[in-house]
């Protein structure tokens, strides 16, 4: 599809919901290595709640309003670090696409730039701190480049998803600076960051969704 409209967005949240239901145990054990094992629970919960909330609200609300609902719902349902950060991301994304009828490559770039900035401000994390920001940054930048290059949405998202995967892989070389993982210091080297994994999973599913 060339652009994602409000009705697609509702289905996208449903796809994300299924994604995190499937990845629940994987994220629990990933977060368990240098954290507190809750990530699989909070992500599956918050995306399930968000998917239901946007479905209940319906496409008539429009993209911006749906994203706002998703963010607010997530903040309520799963107020863990990642839960609140992703909520903040969707709330900021909602603002950045106000008025848009659908998300083409350009709007998608605005979306993820706002998503990245919101999370990085709220969490006071910079690139290289081994957080979700490490994958959000290349995602946002790749989508900006794709917009400049006039790429179609599926190709742009595929490129962003690849960039996210590569950035995720690169988090293995970093030492965690934030959250529960920070306590593990050097022991976090060799492990991919759990929050960054969430970011890469989000993008891959979004890319698959747009390609279908």
């Amino acid at each position, binding site marked *: 599809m060339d652009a994602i409209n409000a009705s697609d967005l509702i289905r996208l949240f449903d796809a994300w919901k299924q994604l995190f239901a499937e990845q629940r145990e994987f994220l*629990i054990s990933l977060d*368990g290595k*240098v*954290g*507190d*094992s*809750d990530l699989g*629970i*909070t992500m599956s919960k918050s995306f399930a709640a968000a998917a239901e909330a946007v479905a209940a609200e319906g496409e008539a609300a429009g993209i911006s309003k749906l994203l706002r609902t998703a963010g607010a719902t997530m*903040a*309520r349902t*799963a*107020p*863990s*670090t990642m*839960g*609140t*950060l992703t909520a*903040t991301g969707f709330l900021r994304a909602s603002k950045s696409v106000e008025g848009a009828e659908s998300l083409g490559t350009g709007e998608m770039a605005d979306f993820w730039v706002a998503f990245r900035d919101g999370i990085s401000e*709220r*969490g006071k994390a910079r690139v290289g701190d081994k957080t979700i920001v490490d994958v959000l940054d290349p995602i946002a930048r790749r989508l900006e480049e794709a917009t400049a290059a006039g790429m179609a949405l599926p190709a742009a998202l595929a490129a962003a998803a690849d960039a996210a995967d590569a950035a995720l892989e690169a988090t293995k070389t970093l030492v965690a600076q*934030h*959250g*529960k993982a*920070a*306590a*593990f210091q050097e*022991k976090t080297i060799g492990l991919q960051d759990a929050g960054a994994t969430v970011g890469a999973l989000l993008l891959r599913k979004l890319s698959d969704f747009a390609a279908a």
Partner: protein
Amino acid sequence: MKKFLNDPVDFVDEMLEGIYKAHPQVTYVADDKRCMVSSSLKTGKVGIATGGGSGHLPLFLGYVGDGMLDGAAVGGVFQSPSSEQMYQVTKAIDQGAGVLYIYGNYSGDIINFDMASELADLDGIEVKQCVGNDDVASSKVGEEHKRRGVAGIYFVYKAAGAAAAEGHSLDEVHRVAEKARLRTRTMGVALSSCVVPEIGHATFSIGEDEMEIGMGIHGEPGISRKKLAPADAVIDEMMDRIFAEQDYKSGDEVAVLVNGLGGTPLEELYVLFRRVAQLMEGRGVTIKHVWVGEFATSMEMAGASVSILHLDAELDRLVGAAANTPFFKHFAA
């Protein structure tokens, strides 16, 4: 998983139902059981709010009551409550004198309390924060801002709660809280894991003869894992770390909290306290106040922590003041 529960998903809310049925001294606002406030708020008093994940009783909500805190936002097991819940508690406990947040240094809580204070600010409620970071094991000197908040937050609650009860201003109560925070050090040791109900299995595994010194209250890693040593040797190692950080001179006075993590019998905590008292005696330091028991737990985790508050005359008066909450009672001497 061997727990008394019904559906794990309902665990926290059913626990809260039990608490409200048992203790009319506390109630809730915003039609949300997770927004706990004292049933008898005092007009004009600085409000003190806390919040954090469940699974640490009596932390956090257990300290809501006379002479301590006014409200607590309650999260899922080991999960932060939401900014909305913190904001609702803030609104309910503000008596015109402003609100102090006292909570532990965890990213989820910080992010949400920050959001809540922004929301409260829009309502014209003055909010100050004090973020507990007493866990010596969780970061080195110079990086104290990275340290986790653990059982020592009890001293911050006690001092700030007493100061607020005495009628001081938000600035004053905040000053006292910060002083107590900066003079509190904690070291912990874990012997077994806890089980988060919705996860259903141990958070981490540890050998039948091993201990982990410095482990966090959610199972975050400590400084060293090794063979369980005799109680005295365990305390010696933990207290070495605390003594290395602050200068306890002969004639100084301290308050001591020996805290059980949940699965360790009270008997053992007194064996540990005995050694702490010996070490303090050896340095000529007087223990003015002692608490031994469960003050900040990790569900059924076996283990203990020792928190030391380095007293001055003001803190001595404040931690000794009377308090009466459903979970914590203290008669003034």
